[in-house]
């Protein structure tokens, strides 16, 4: 057992599960989406990105790319939330909620790809 692989797999999977947890629920109902969950998803996603730094293989490059996509999507979701709650006169309305949740949905897709890659890599290593 390789502790580095454990940590790596843990963060990638955690990024996916947190993301999923935030995404699930009615797309226009803010009560179904927890702000702490979004925060946790963003932080874990950032850590997963840093963990993927410095891998020179082709797979490593794809890993990094998917992670960067997820970061970008979650960051956009967080920014929209922040803008709607604090700056926009309309406040956290349906429109803003839909935007936040759909952005996190995009990040979810990227995280799924990441996990698929992880599984594929694991399958090729027969040890």
């Amino acid at each position, binding site marked *: 057992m390789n502790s580095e692989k454990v940590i790596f797999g843990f963060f990638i999977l955690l990024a996916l599960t947190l993301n999923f947890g935030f995404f699930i629920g009615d797309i226009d109902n803010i009560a179904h989406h927890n702000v702490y969950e979004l*925060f946790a998803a963003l*932080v874990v996603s950032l*850590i997963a990105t*840093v*963990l993927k*730094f*410095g891998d020179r293989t082709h797979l490593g490059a794809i890993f990094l790319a998917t992670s960067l996509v997820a970061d970008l999507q979650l960051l956009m979701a967080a920014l929209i939330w*922040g803008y709607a*709650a*604090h700056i926009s006169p309309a406040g956290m309305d349906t429109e803003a909620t839909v935007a936040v949740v759909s952005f996190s949905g995009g990040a979810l897709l990227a995280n799924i790809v990441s996990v698929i890659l992880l599984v594929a890599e694991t399958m090729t290593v027969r040890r």
Partner: protein
Amino acid sequence: MPDIFYVLLRRMRAPLIVLILMYAVSVLGFTLIPGQDAEGQPWHMSFFHALYVVSYTASTIGFGEIPYAFTEAQRLWMVFVIHLTVIGWLYSIGSLLTVLQDPAFRRLRTEYAFQRSVKRLRTPFYLVCGYGDTGGILVKALADEGIKSVVIDRDENRINELELNDYIRRPLGLLADAAKPAVLEMAGITHNYCVGIIALTDSDQTNQMVALSAYLLNPDLRVLARVESAEAGANIRSFGKNEVIDPFETFAGRLAMAIHSPGMYTLFTWMTGVPHEVLREPLFPEPGVWILSGYGRFGKALCRHLQQAGIQMQVIETDPVRTNAPPGTIAGSGVEASTLLDAGLKRAVGIIAGTDNDANNLSILMTARELKPDIFMVARQNQRDNGIIFDKANFNLIMKRGDVVAHKIFALLRTPLISHFLEAVKARDDDWANLLVSRILGVTTDEVPYLWEIKINKTRTPALYKGCLAHGVTLRDLLRDPRKREAQLPVIPLLLKRQEQVMVLPDADTGLAVSDRLLMCASYPTSHDMQWATQNENVLHYLLTGQETSGGDVWRRLLRYC
């Protein structure tokens, strides 16, 4: 992405994760801890506010308690956040600096920068392995001529020296072992603009390896290698079309020439001179017996050359048995007066201090001068750094090994016509050389004559090319002054090469043909005047007919109809 970037990212993993976690924990803490608003109502900080507070706290700006005054619980958390973030930043920045300062990382960085600048080269360049005496002179000569070079050397001091020198075309230097093919590849051996590789390291082994790598990696590349042993030389010659230079043989051959045919020596020195070098007056030693001190590899080669020319030699050697010195050799170092007198200094016309020790060479000649002030003194200078005292000692001839070898290579690199010319004149006698030397003296200033090649082709000399095709141009036309055609430019055409035929000092009435190659000799400014005529149709037209024309296409057509 380059390697260096990956290394930096991998080393920065831990500090970056620490930073992310530190911010995450601090922000989360502020959102969870209950506060009070201005009216004393319970209030929770949003993520937006929490990030704002943590950002100005972590960067030590400290705006205060925003938007409402903190509760005691929030202040307690603030104390924790302040210490956490300061330590976190110190650690991250410290790690970044450690990585950047790391010797291995720095080497990687310089290698990467070197590799990138080599890749960006868009002018022809030479790859020089070994930046010693010879390499230094060669690189400087190339730089003065406007040719870029890439230098590899194993000695850090030499690479530093290279970087401190202010050349017009700054050579690129890399601290590495030229014997490694990967290093050569990094230095651009397979680069499109690499025109040649010159192996000048002290070790024959390395030079062989360089020649071999060049042959396998880039077979069309021109290879010049410095080789001390005959076996290594034969080995390098056996593959590819490599050129080999034996420093002892070259040096001894040139010195012997200085003694037995001074005119030819002067001619050779000028032909292989570095541009803008100050001209030295020709020397004429008298015939007679010569004393040679030192019978090492250099001494042996010199003896052989001088004996071929029929000059009598008296050898002085410290260890005649081990060096296998000729019979009649005087044992001793030559620095004492008695040894020199035993060797017959009073009868000799000249003395050559040819040991590999500069201090001994100096003291031999100083002693000889005390005993016989009018003797012709030839010094062998081994180290470039000793140049100041050798110059001050005022000997008749100072032979610097680095100079001789570097100049020979430089001449080979500049244009192959110079070596054709030197090869062709070897058969002539010294009087012929003297005559040519005095002709050259007439056309140059106080600098070594400037040599250049004129190749009649479409791209380099368009005007001359068209002229040759249309109505024929003679050498005399080309030699006319573009300002006043009745006058001749002070230029000596040294050589004309037409296919395999070589004409030394071609006649002025010789007609020129397309793809002829001419070696010209004049002062540097004059060379520009002549290049003008070869490239500008109107100037050439004036030289041929004496009529001034203006260049426009329309005007030319109008003239045709008139």
